[in-house]
Every structure is written in structure tokens, then in C-alpha cells.
């Protein structure tokens, strides 16, 4: 066994086309999951702010449960557990999207709550005193300002969720890590392939960071 350092650049580069096949899955799971997660987060974040306990309580329970359990356990539960209840299999891709949705949804609920709560009381009072209804005040005054403040935290959550999709190799979704494992099984170049996998994740997350920075800069106008 040769223990000296022998990084094989050729093997690294040759792995790239194979790995790229995983990127559409990684992106699909991430963005579909996050889109649904955002809708969930908006709904539960606002319910969490409700003064009525019967609205607030279910939101608290949802947030605590999905924030307090690992996303890996959640996806295993959905993929292997839920079919026993539903009586039929769930496609791995759908299970991955669902796991990202419910998991990011819990975190986004808290982001939404924090963003909305951060808007000074005077904004609401100004809206109401002009004769706007409560929902108009929310829609035109509170939400646009709150959303701007949520952007950095939402970006953070996006990056976390993208990385979380790597766990879904265990249920056989053909995403980035899974493609890497498959390729390593035939080439035994773990060092090179996992390095390339890491670089591809970094490429995705850095792109997102960059987009967010642009958005934040744009969002700052008029603040």
C-alpha cells in the first residue's frame, strides 16, 4: 500500500462529468424544498405571531419538532416510515424535497417571525391611523420591510439546506454526493472525488452568497 501522497489530477478531472450529473438533483431538491419551506415558513411564522393560542400553539409545536430533530432522521422517516402508513412507496426525490421543505420551513418560520417582529410598532400605527386595514397595513408596510430584513437569514438557511441535501445519498437520490460515491466505487479515488464534490458544493453556495450580497445591496436602497 502506497501511503505517500499521490493526488491524481487526472482522476479528479475525469470525475467531474459524472459528478455534474448529480447537480440537477441537488439543485432541484434544494430549491423546490426551500420554495415550499418558504411558504410553510410564512404561514407558520405568522401563526406563531398570532395572539390566539389555538393558532399559535400548533405553530410552536411544528417549529420545535422539526427544528429539534435531525434532517437525516426526518428524511429516513419520510422515505422508510411514511410508506407504512400510506401503503405505498414514496419516490426518493419527493422524500428529499419534503424533508428540506419541512425542515427549512421550521427555521424559516422563526426567520419570518423575527423579521416581522423587528418592525417598529410605529409603522403599524401609522398604517392603521391612515385608515388602512390590518391586512393592508401588513401587506404594504410591515411585510415589505420585514422581508428585507429576513434576506440575510433566508440566504443562510438556503445555504444550510443545500448542504443538507448531501445527506440524501443514503436514500439513493442521485445527487452530488451519491454520484461521487458511485464513481468512487469504480475508481477507488476517494480523495480526488470528494475534493471535487466539495468544490462543486462550494461553487453552488458561493454563487448563492454572491447573489444574496447583490440583493442585499439592492434592498438597502431607501432604508
Amino acid at each position, binding site marked *: 500500500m502506497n501511503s505517500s501522497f499521490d493526488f491524481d489530477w487526472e482522476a479528479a478531472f475525469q470525475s467531474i462529468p459524472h459528478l455534474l450529473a448529480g447537480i440537477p438533483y441537488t439543485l432541484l431538491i434544494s430549491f423546490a424544498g426551500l420554495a415550499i419551506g418558504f411558504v410553510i415558513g410564512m404561514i407558520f411564522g405568522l401563526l406563531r405571531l398570532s395572539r390566539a393560542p389555538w393558532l399559535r400553539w400548533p405553530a410552536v409545536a411544528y417549529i420545535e419538532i422539526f427544528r429539534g430533530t435531525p434532517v437525516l432522521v426526518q428524511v429516513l422517516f419520510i422515505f422508510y416510515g411514511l410508506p407504512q402508513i400510506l401503503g405505498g412507496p414514496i419516490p426518493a426525490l419527493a422524500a428529499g424535497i419534503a424533508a428540506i421543505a419541512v425542515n427549512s420551513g421550521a427555521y424559516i418560520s422563526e426567520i419570518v417571525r423575527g423579521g416581522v417582529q423587528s418592525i417598529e410598532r*410605529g409603522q403599524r*400605527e*401609522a398604517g*392603521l*391611523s*391612515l*385608515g*388602512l386595514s390590518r391586512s393592508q397595513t401588513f401587506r*404594504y408596510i410591515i411585510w415589505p420591510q420585514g422581508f428585507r430584513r429576513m434576506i440575510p437569514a433566508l440566504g443562510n438557511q438556503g445555504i444550510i439546506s443545500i448542504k443538507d441535501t448531501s445527506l440524501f445519498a443514503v436514500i439513493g437520490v442521485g445527487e452530488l454526493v451519491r454520484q461521487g460515491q458511485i464513481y468512487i466505487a469504480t475508481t477507488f479515488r476517494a480523495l480526488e472525488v470528494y475534493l471535487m464534490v466539495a468544490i462543486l458544493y462550494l461553487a453552488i453556495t458561493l454563487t448563492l452568497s454572491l447573489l444574496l450580497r447583490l440583493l442585499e445591496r439592492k434592498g438597502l436602497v431607501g*432604508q
Partner: protein
Amino acid sequence: MSERTDKDGAPIVRMEKLNKHFGTLHVLKDVDLEVTPGEVVVIIGASGSGKSTLIRCINGLEEFQKGKLEVDGKRLEPHGKASKALQQIRTEVGMVFQQFNLFPHLSVRDNVTLAPRKVRGASRAEARETADRLLERVGIANQADKYPGQLSGGQQQRVALARALAMEPRLMLFDEPTSALDPEMIGEVLDAMRELAREGMTMVIVTHEMSFAREVADRVIYIHEGEIVEEGPPEAVFDNPQRERTRSFLSRVLTH
């Protein structure tokens, strides 16, 4: 801006034995207040006397627990029960806040057009025309495309005034409109208010600006620990206060 003539002299605000508590604190005690159309009422008193709370009850930003309150002929219920009447009252009653409370994400013009468009259903063009006319009036026509954060405090407060006036209110409430301003900007805001008073707007003003109060008020109300201690024409209250509490308050605020 409106040369509205009121058909009758019926009070626009009628408050009877109003009581408000913040928890165990009794903030307003049996307050009676009537404001007739065209009248300028100035409320003075120390910090924490309840004067801001009092005018915030008029447009339902604060709820009260006991008593009667009618604004613009519509009844406000105790305990802040949201009602149709409350929103109607708010469309007819404008308010200017100590902290301006402009909408920082909207341009100056959009701050002024938002409510007329969404509440009154004005078209974008109509609302814009009204906004530009009002901004011109308060002396900030050339800043309409800027954002509130780019304006000075005095300019922001004048935008806030234009924003409230755009709804063509029948009554304007001012909650310490100059208290958050740098001294050199107080004058421009008071000037705009003075002009509004001259045009016959009904106004209820909470302020610490005593000389302004003396000048514009038809009636001055001194409130202490949630009770109206003294009220009357400014000359009477300022020059010949009847109550010891009023005298000691005035001696403290008029010395500086």
C-alpha cells in the same frame, strides 16, 4: 387644504368619563373632552401625564376600559373591540407622530399616495396629483422621489403631515410633533401646523411648545396624572391659572 364647511356645530370628538388603565396604572381618569369643528385644542402636561394616551384613544391606537367616546358621529367601543366604525374613524382622522413613522421603504411621494389609493380607491394619477400639491404646500415638492431616510427630521415630519392630509381628514391629531426634532427644525414644522390651523382645520395637539400653544390654541387643556386639571382659552390658562398644579407646571416649563 379643505374648505370644508360643517353643516352643524356638532362636536367631532365627544368623550365622556373616559377611563384607561395600563395594568394597575390608572392612566386616564374620568376624562371629558369635546372638540368642535374648526377648533384647535392644545393639550399640555408633564411626561407621563396621559396626554399622548388621551389623543391616541381618539383614533383607537389605545383602547379604553370605561366611558363613552364618539368621533365624527361614530361610537368607539371600550376594550378596543375592532369595529367597522374604528376604521371609518381612522380614515377621517389624521395623525402626526413624534417619531414621524414614515414608511422607509417607500419614496416620499408613495408615502403620501399609499392610503388615498388603497383606502379611498384613488387612481395613481389622482393620488399623485394630490400628493405633489400637498408636498408643495409643506415645502418639499422637490424631494418627492427621495426616500424618508434621505431627509432631515423637519422635512420628514412635514412629509408625515402631507401624508395625513392626503386623506382629507376632518380632524388632525398631533402627538408631540416637534419633540424628536433638532431645535433648528422645530420652526418649519410649527409653521406648517400654524398654516393648517389658519385654514380652519380641526386640530388636537399634544405639545411642549408653550409659545406655539398660546398662539394657535382656541383652548388649552392641562392634564396631570390622567386628569384634566384646568382648561380654557390660552390667555386664561397661561396668564391666570386657577389651580395650584397648573401654576407649578407652568412655572417649570415657562422658565426655559
